[in-house]
């Protein structure tokens, strides 16, 4: 028996090593400020030009954009000190910031910017979701610090799209593979950002330290550790134990857990400004939903405030506007559609959907008013909202069938226009509002197809086209105003609630901010009192 125990102990110890966890500062004998957070997935290979499995949050710590998206949609110089746009809106000339180096000491200049663009454009198809990639004609390193981009046609959101976290951020020379094609992988994650990846263990943790060569303000903490914790409840327990200093993100813990941590009074909790709008898309190619009165009846027929408060426990805020007004061009005046059951019933009567005596579902020409709402079954808010709508609309004589789907299946049916009603959320900053209006006009994303039967759809599409090409700020504002007002009046996309990011942190943590860019991070300002 002793031999067995000895064997087992040796085997287990053999599989285990102290290297498994990041070395604590006490072990290193240093008094450094370390902030520990968590993330549900491994940070991935830290390639700035590809998507999964690299995680946006970590990519944004190492790699930087030419232009930075700040509060309210203001674009500020970052790696580009300044820029000029030709009067026809096709040529963008960037003056690069001087004295910027990558974390390995190599210079950041127009040649490396060009090299990054060349690598990205080798796989332009993968990035076609970014409008400016589709119209990018050529790029040139004019001199050491001047980089020029020429477009095939004007596209005003080019600067906004240059501020996204991927793929247009810059890898240092040492990171490039020999053939220059980063889609095949990067040799090492060398960026110009405030952080450097100093230690990493797949699926366990990633440790970032300050980049001593950083051109901007140095992060307040010396080290930031991201622990990979896939489960939300474990994340909360690790936080309560003190293993994590901060929990940050969207949907990273359950609403109940957030409320519980908030109610305990032991921690600080905060919600961000709206980062997106949770919407309900009514498919106008459905016979019943093609009628504006039915769409308005459905909007009047549920108590939005009660539903949002009840389902999200105040975590989200009731939305009246399709896009929250903290995005550019979206601060327009609209008349909110209120909760009014009698008005909803009247609209349905007017539309010819009559409630036969003794029945609970309205009918028109012998056909019942029956609709299907699809929702993502793994998402914690969509299902209870679907159930609420089912109950609320039953009271006005509408039968709502609800179908839970996997995300991919939900998107597939949305794209194929195979739905009556579906939940949707816009992309957030820095993608909106231009990405939102693009999918209003462009088929294949679900929205444009669902709006096919609203009156004046062609005119709406033309307005979208004009807004994206416009180089006149006033005209663009007018076009946005008109587009959003039409969408509001047609009631085929119903705003439900404003989605927010959350943060929970210990009281010794300070400098907690939310990034203006939904995919970015604000870790540089974080500080901790040991």
């Amino acid at each position, binding site marked *: 028996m002793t031999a067995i125990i000895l064997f087992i102990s040796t085997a287990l110890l053999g*599989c285990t090593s102290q290297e498994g966890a990041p070395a604590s500062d006490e072990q290193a004998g240093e008094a450094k400020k370390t902030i520990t957070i968590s993330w549900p997935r491994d940070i991935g290979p830290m390639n700035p030009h590809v998507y999964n499995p690299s995680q946006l949050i970590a990519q944004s710590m190492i790699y930087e954009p030419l232009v930075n998206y700040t509060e309210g949609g203001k674009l500020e110089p970052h790696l580009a000190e300044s820029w000029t746009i030709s009067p026809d809106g096709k040529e963008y000339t960037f003056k690069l910031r001087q004295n910027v180096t990558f974390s390995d000491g190599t210079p950041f200049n127009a040649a490396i910017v060009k090299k990054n663009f060349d690598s990205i454009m080798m796989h332009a198809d993968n990035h*076609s*979701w970014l409008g400016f990639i589709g119209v990018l004609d050529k790029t040139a390193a004019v001199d050491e610090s001047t980089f020029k981009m020429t477009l095939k046609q004007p596209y005003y959101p080019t600067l906004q799209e240059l501020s996204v976290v991927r793929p247009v951020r810059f890898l240092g020379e040492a990171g490039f593979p020999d053939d220059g094609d980063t889609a095949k992988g990067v040799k090492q994650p060398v960026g110009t950002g405030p952080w450097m990846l100093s230690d990493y263990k797949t699926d366990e943790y990633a440790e970032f330290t300050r980049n001593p060569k950083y051109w901007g303000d140095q992060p307040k903490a010396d080290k930031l550790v991201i622990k990979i914790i896939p489960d939300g409840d474990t994340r909360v*327990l690790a936080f309560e134990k003190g293993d994590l200093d901060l929990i940050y993100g969207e949907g990273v813990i359950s609403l109940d857990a957030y409320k519980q941590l908030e109610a305990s009074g032991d921690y600080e909790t905060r919600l961000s400004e709206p980062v997106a709008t949770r919407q309900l898309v009514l498919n106008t190619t459905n016979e019943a939903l093609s009628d504006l009165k039915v769409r308005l009846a459905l909007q009047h027929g549920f108590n939005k405030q009660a539903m949002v408060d009840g389902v999200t426990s105040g975590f989200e805020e009731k939305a009246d506007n399709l896009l929250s007004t903290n995005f550019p061009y979206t601060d327009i005046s609209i008349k909110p559609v209120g909760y009014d059951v009698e008005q909803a019933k009247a609209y349905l009567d007017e539309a010819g959907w009559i409630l036969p005596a003794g029945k609970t579902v309205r009918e028109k020409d012998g056909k019942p008013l029956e609709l299907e709402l699809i929702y993502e079954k793994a998402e914690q808010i969509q299902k209870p909202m679907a159930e609420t709508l089912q109950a609320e609309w039953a009271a006005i004589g509408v039968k709502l069938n609800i179908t839970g789907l996997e*995300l*991919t299946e939900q998107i*597939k049916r949305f794209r194929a226009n195979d739905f009556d009603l579906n939940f949707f959320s816009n992309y957030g900053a820095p993608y909106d509002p231009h990405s939102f209006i693009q999918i209003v006009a462009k088929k294949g994303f679900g929205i444009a197809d669902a709006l096919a039967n609203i009156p004046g759809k062609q005119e709406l599409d033309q307005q979208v086209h004009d807004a994206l090409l416009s180089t006149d700020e006033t005209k663009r504002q007018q076009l946005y105003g008109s587009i959003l007002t039409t969408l509001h009046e047609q009631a085929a996309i119903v705003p439900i609630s404003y989605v927010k990011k959350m943060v929970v942190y210990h009281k010794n943590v300070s400098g907690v901010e939310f990034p203006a860019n939904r995919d970015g991070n604000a870790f540089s300002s974080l500080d901790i009192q040991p």
Partner: protein
Amino acid sequence: MFSFTLKRLLAVIPIFFFATLLSFILIRLSPVDPAEAYLVAAHIHPTDELIAQKRHEFGLDRPLPVQYAQFLIKMCRLDFGTSYLSNEPVWQEVQRRMPATLQLAFSSICMAVLISIPIGFFSALYKNSVIDHLSRLLAFFGASMPQFWLGYLLIYFLSVKLDLFPVQGRGTIVHLVLPSLTLAMGLIAIYTRLLRSGVLEQMQEPYVLYARTRGIREKVIMGKHVLKIAVSPMITGLGMNMGKLLAGTIIVEEVFSWPGFGRFFIEAIFNRDIPVIQCYVFLSACLFIVCNLIVDVLQMMIDPRISLKGRTGH
């Protein structure tokens, strides 16, 4: 014994064939297109052109029999293709993550055996005593409590409240305790009861009475004879419970952020990462077959009558 082992080894071939074929068919029955799932996971908008391009890249546009044949040929060379999600060879991903999963599974089995043998044995020896009642209670809890829930309870009380163990992660041997215990609990529940009934049954056997009349010490009878035979059903149970253990590993790895292959597999399922799913099914089938084979051989070694029975039957 040699022919028995050889026969069992030959039976492995059709089992592998059916396991791989079944997984191949089941994955393709899903309404979710792996190419579309890949694009959604990558936050790339899935246009028809991109989906077609990815389908071609993944070889999903070829006829199904061709896809299956290619998979089988590659599998023989331990080439499971490239993960759609990580863009790395699946076998490399397996090698990176499997040691952690095996470590967890191995330590759980050890824990289950080391805990259930004394509890099962003593609860039979002292039938209807406090230890017997406590072991029954433990078995009830172990068998009825979902693993994720047990995991959270252990973390909450032993880690958050008493600060005895880390909440999550892998690193030192202390990190192993809670996930292993969570995983082992279900097995402990079964084995304690199996062993208890086995010991009680053996205690009624005539050889125990003869041994006593020969004046052999009670400790020797129980430890050397009764326990040895009573342990046999436990070994069978161990082989049969490998599936439960594997499924449990997936959940426990998720709850304790254990960096094993189970977590990777979960993501693979959600993202329809076919090469990873197929590799996991293949490895699971291997593990099942090998474990069952080992169990059979072990039982034969403990109780040679099994081999004799087989021979007479033949």
